[in-house]
């Protein structure tokens, strides 16, 4: 009887533990999933320009820009009050000689740094071009225009070097581990 009660108790305990573990895992996975969706953290300053009463600083995760998805973010500052403007509307377009190559709206939602407006753009053509930004702050509208250079795609081997090297690192560590295990047992372990 006592034994059964103890069994029940331990079963309940383990189910509570499992439940807690599941809950924690769910929370972490939700946080991770939301983190994956949120992009951009400013990065390197691409250019800075003043127009009327505002100063716009453009950031990108890499400079110069490269072909492929690029996080481009903007800080809009009010020159008179020396503080960031957070309720503006920011439209960004990339142009080359052939016309607009990429455009979109930059928002806080896509940015990790919530002082920035971010837009994830897919750059498809290399070469010189212009980045046009339209900032609407209340009734005021500002047009900014700056030269940008888009470089060719980075070698995929360099881009994915971490994923390409991890099997080799683990394999080397494993051989080293096995060598040590062999020495310990003087015979294949397991």
């Amino acid at each position, binding site marked *: 009887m006592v034994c059964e009660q103890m069994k029940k108790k331990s079963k309940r305990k383990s189910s509570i533990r499992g439940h807690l*573990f599941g809950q*924690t895992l769910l929370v*972490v996975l939700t*946080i*991770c999933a*939301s*983190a*994956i969706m*949120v992009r951009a*953290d*400013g*990065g*390197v*300053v691409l250019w*800075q320009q003043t127009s009327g009463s505002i100063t716009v*600083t453009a950031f990108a*995760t890499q400079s110069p820009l490269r072909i*492929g*998805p690029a996080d481009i973010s903007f*800080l809009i*500052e009010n020159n008179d009050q*020396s*503080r*960031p403007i*957070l*309720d503006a509307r920011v439209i960004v377009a990339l142009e080359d000689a052939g016309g607009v190559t990429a455009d979109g709206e930059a928002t*806080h939602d896509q940015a*990790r*740094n*919530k*002082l920035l407006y971010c837009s994830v753009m*897919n750059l*498809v053509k290399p070469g010189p071009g212009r980045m046009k930004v339209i900032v609407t702050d209340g009734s005021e509208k500002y047009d900014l225009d700056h030269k940008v250079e888009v470089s060719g795609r980075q070698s*995929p081997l360099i881009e*994915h070097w971490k*994923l*390409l090297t*991890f*099997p080799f690192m*683990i*394999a080397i560590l*494993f*051989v080293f*581990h*096995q*060598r*040590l*295990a*062999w*020495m*310990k047992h003087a*015979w*294949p*372990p*397991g």
Partner: protein
Amino acid sequence: MDTITDAVLNSWNLDPWLLIPALVISLLYARGWSRQHKRAPHRFGFPQLISFSAGLISVLLALISPLDTFAGWLLTVHMIQHLLLMMVGPALILYGNPYLPLLAGMPRSFLKDGVAPFFASVTLRRVARFVTHPVFCWTAFVFTTIAWHTPPMYQLALNSPTWHAVEHLCFLTTALLFWSPIIQPYPLVPQMPRWSIIPYLFFADFQNTALSAFLIFYERVLYPAYETAPRIAGMTVLEDQAAAGAIMWVASSIFFLIPVALITIEVLSQKKTPRLRKRVVVGQSQLRKRTERQAAKHRPRRRTAIDLLSLPLIGSILRWRYFRRSVQAVMFVVAIIVVADGFFGPQVAAMNLAGVLPWTHWRGFSVIALLVVGNVVCMACPFNFVRDLGRRLLPASWSWPRRLRSKWITVSLLFIFFWAYEAFSLWERPRSVAWLIVGYFAAALIIDGLYKGASFCKYVCPVGQYQFIQSLISPVEVGVRSPTVCNTCTTHDCLRGNSQQRGCELQLFQPQKTSNMDCTFCLDCVSACPHENVSLLATLPGTQLVKIEGRKRSLRWFRRFDGAVLIFLLVFAGFINAGSMSESVQRWEQALQQTLGRSSFQMILFVSFLIALVAIPVILVAASVWLGKLFSRRPMSWRESVSTFAQAFVPLGFSMWLAHFSYHLVNGALTAVPVVQRAARSAGLSILGKPDWSLSASMINFGWLPSAQLLMLGLGLLFTLYIGWRLASSFRLKFAWTLGMVAPWAVLALVLYAAGVWIIFQPMQMRGMMMDGTAEWCVSK
């Protein structure tokens, strides 16, 4: 709250690469601490638990909070981040005596087989002793601090997220080393007298003061990146630099000088007995460990498999008598609709169910199901209906010819299929697909109508063989709950059947069954077993392959040559099938077709497939066998060698199939919508609406997909190398000879891996999608 402050406080970087390791570490510590707390509450008490948790939170705060987000804009913020990483976090973590709880928190088998060899190594212990020596710790800490504060290094970290992460890693590791001799977490043995920590800390503070003073009093901007950064705090760059120096000076000095005071008091009030007491304690703990080790030997091993049939909801669904029939019925109806649409629908692949569902969706879902569950495709196979029909219409009394009881028929059929798929562009001919399915139905009906058992599944069906081989990776297996129950069983109903339920048609005897090979997940054995001892058991993916490295009689399937050839065919075909869709191969095929005409092209392609799927694999495998024999100095027949090492390649082959099919599934998932809408309208059902063909023409740019594919391939390679190593180890040779035996196979695996990486980086033809000429290639890669 001010909107700007609100925005700043919401700027978190919830990076899963930081959160998941932190969660794993905290779980390990909590598990280990609860065990250690029972044994030695004075060493692993609640202060230690709180301290460790606070330390981990400090490190996480430094890396994921707005501190990290704004570190590139303000040097002051960056300095606070570094203080958390170098002073607060490491000291608190070490006060939690983390070593033993972290080790005790690991699974016992991982601790024994994975970690113990490192601890047992004399060389590594010497290295650890050297690395934890106060002189090394101090030098590493000071050198790292100075080096990363020099302008070129600091600029490098500010401009590159990867170098920034390296900088933080350097700070954290050297800080953990630096605080080790000061805090002396149990069971670290002090290597220098306690009083020597006083000058240790003083000199560290001296270096810190010099660096801080330089930051405060230097009249130019030290790090140019801050000149271009927005000045959100109302400070100039120089003011920010000076403030950062002041924080570094004051806060760090406090962190250095408080331990100085505490250690001075400790040294002055020290008695000489503790050292002796410590030795006695160590002796007792060693004795206790030895007793525990002996007790553990006699403890029965816990089963790690999860019994799916005893799970509350899933178990009842799976045990439902009509479950399998219902799923098969659904698949049968789908197959009939696909066939009908293939014959009578538009002959454009992207507009026809037969051009989209089998190639994009069914293949993709089946390979994912193999990884997540098991051989679901055979379980839900629609051909079972016609097989049963064949048994009723025809005698079904002949025995399958003894000579044909092998995998050679399927090897030939699979080769023909892979060639025909490319030569006749099956994916873009819905009517051919419909004929293929009808042919399959006819073959199943005739073979199982004439022969006993599941001869079609076991010896003929190419899809089944593909599933059998790939399901060796799967986590779910049909197996026995308790081997002791089987030992007492005399009726063997799982194999022979009984009056109410037939036994295994594929002649698999449950107590001897070791893997999913030849298992169709029909669950007949589950229903037949009178002891309810057969179930669906779930473990970690790949566990079956780890089991087969043994040399038991029951594992003889894995020593069969035809099985090895089947495995190699599927492995190489995985790479060739994916490679044929790459831009360069497709252009070569198109040029060849234009030059030679269609019939000659098919012959040339046949020869090419002979070279790629037969000649090249034979040469590579033969070279691996010969070199393996040469390096291992073990006489072994080439058949034995091939049959042994073939199974190691299953994970690599599977990873390529997974990377390939999941790519098509992810990119072409929505193509099914307009095709189903079109098919419904053709059948007179307009409730699904008008087909939106833009869904078949647009490709969503999934930037993460190549990374995910590389990860799959990398894991496949690692698992292949691991199985190869275990197989070579089973010969019990010297270490160097074992390495020599497995090395040529490892090189072969690396060659395949390199081919897979090349394929992943190639623009791919989007089959089953409506792409125009220019957009046909997935340029987003």
